[in-house]
């Protein structure tokens, strides 16, 4: 077996073992909710049916883990994704505390300059332009009350 195929196979095993575990936990939790019977189902019956189906399918897939052709290796690109996701979490943390303007500009600069390696001129122009456009779209145009510090 090539290393590519065994990598994909490992990926598949991990990716199906996680839903398997979640399915087992969900099945136990649903059972505790009270299943009732078919004529008078309790709140747990449907989640139990779904989680049992999930466990069965996941178990089959863990065993039959051969590559299906869609698997991709995690490479250097994954680092960009992790940084990007982290920045989005930070954006959400700051959003209500300091208003949307500063985090928006900061996110744009990070994505354009650091992740996208754009020139400083392009970064500055796009960051400012997009922030203003978003302000106009959501606050002026759609009348949504976003937390913001700049007011007209």
């Amino acid at each position, binding site marked *: 077996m090539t290393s590519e195929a065994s990598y*994909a196979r490992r*990926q*598949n095993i991990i990716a*199906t073992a996680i*839903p398997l575990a*979640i*399915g087992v936990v*969900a099945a136990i*939790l649903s059972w505790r*909710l009270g299943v009732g*019977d*078919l*004529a*008078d*189902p309790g*709140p747990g019956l*449907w*989640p139990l049916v*779904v*989680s049992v189906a*999930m466990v069965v*399918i996941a178990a089959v*897939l863990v065993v039959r883990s051969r*590559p*299906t*052709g*869609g*698997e*991709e290796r*995690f*490479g250097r*690109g*994954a680092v*960009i*994704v992790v940084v*990007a*996701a982290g920045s*989005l*979490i930070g*954006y*959400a943390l700051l*959003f*209500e505390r300091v208003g949307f303007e500063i985090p*928006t500009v900061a*996110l*744009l600069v990070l*994505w*354009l300059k650091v*992740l*996208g390696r*754009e020139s400083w001129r*392009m970064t500055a122009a*796009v960051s400012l332009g*997009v922030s203003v456009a*978003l302000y106009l*779209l*959501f606050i002026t145009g*759609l009348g*949504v009350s*976003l937390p913001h510090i700049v007011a007209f």
Partner: protein
Amino acid sequence: MGFLSPVIAGFGVVFQPQNLLYCLLGVTLGMLVGVLPGLGPAATIAILLPVTYNIEPTSAIIMLAGIFYGAQYGGTITSVLLRLPGEASSVVTAIDGYEMTKQGRGGAALGISAIGSFIGGTVAIVVVTFVAPLVAGFALDFGPAEYTMLALLGILMVTTLGTGSAGKSLLMATVGLLLATIGQDPLIGTPRLAFGSDQLLDGIDFVIIAMGVFGVGEILYNLESLRDKPPGPVTVGSVYPSRQDLRDSRGAIGRGSVVGFLLGILPGGGATMSSMVAYAVERKAAKKPETFGKGAIQAVAGPETANNAAATSSFIPLLSLGIPANATMAVMFGALLLQGISPGPMLVKENPELFWGVVNSMYIGNLLLLAMSLPLIGIFVRILRIRPAILAPVTVLITMIGVYTVRMNVFDMFLVVGLGLLGYLMKKVGFEPGPLVLAFVLGEILEAAFRRSMRTFDGQLTGFLTQPIAAALLGAIVLLVGWSLVRAARAPNLARKPEAEPLESSRS
């Protein structure tokens, strides 16, 4: 002419200036989304859901529908010129379309695609006008038993007929179903799987799921190729096909319209599958099949006609049964719910302006798209040169702020990032996000319908067999499952790859 009067009234809705404007906006966005590789129509519609919340329902749906069928036109451009399908439904077009570009006939390929798409789309709208109310009338008698089977069939067909591994899709469908159970029991209100969180007690909003898995998920996935250089300038040539071209593709356009329309109605069918089937049909019908793969114009005209006809006809199950047939329609379903409209057999009667407004707007939309694809094609070819590094932060910000506006809640922002990471990881390991989103939508329908039927049948599962339509649908489910098992058993060692796998980047 009792039947036609609401249809004609629908044109009155379409020609209101604001609706025309939203139609234009929708199809333009659709063209852009189609041209730019990366975001697909489902992701775009998902991202824009919160924005449409503040727009009047009919206008909102007209715009979102425009994005969907507009993307079918736009997706062709990158397929033909660069061999980079902007949409999954244009993957097969790339085979012969790109050959034609190499022979200097790229313009003709684009032109015939636009004409085929226009004809396919228009034929489909005319048929929808007559078929959708019929289906809705038929479905008025459907009870919970029928809906249980219909929803189940929908989920199974999407997982078995869709692209990617059937097993993986099935697993994702159960994840979607499980996510749908979070929150309160729909009939008694007991909290379920909410882990004591007030935020989860209301359940996860569909908008969040769609925006996370489709929107943020695709943005994160595309970040990996963020630093890629945009393609260089391409020359298109004349987009007006010659008489010979038109004569050659006449049959293909006709067949494509029929294939596309029929497959579009099927759950799990939709634009992608219909384009692949149309390609196969053309190959069978061709007098000179050896020209396929070497720039045969029929191989471009057929699939492009079909994907557009399918995009239109896939509105039938959504608008007349309330059952979305594919992932994009699931997002559209979410858009209707967000507007306080529940799609189903009553929609035609209760909301004729919306129903006929949306259907008839597609005539205008297709005309606009024809204009954009023939005389204005140069503008869209130039858009190909926008760098993904600039596009990514813009789309992610619209998503993040949009998600906040749904409930004015920061918790949803964290949820959407989490679901986005899930969507990214799924794509990396070869799991399609479509079945998850579709199953999430159908999950609520399925559970409620299943439990209601169990009550009427007094807990007897055999009760489903006593209802003729439900029993017939159950028969279809059994056939489908049986057929998939046989297929899986026959090809144990063949990794099921979609035909056009080496083309890469059908990221939609």
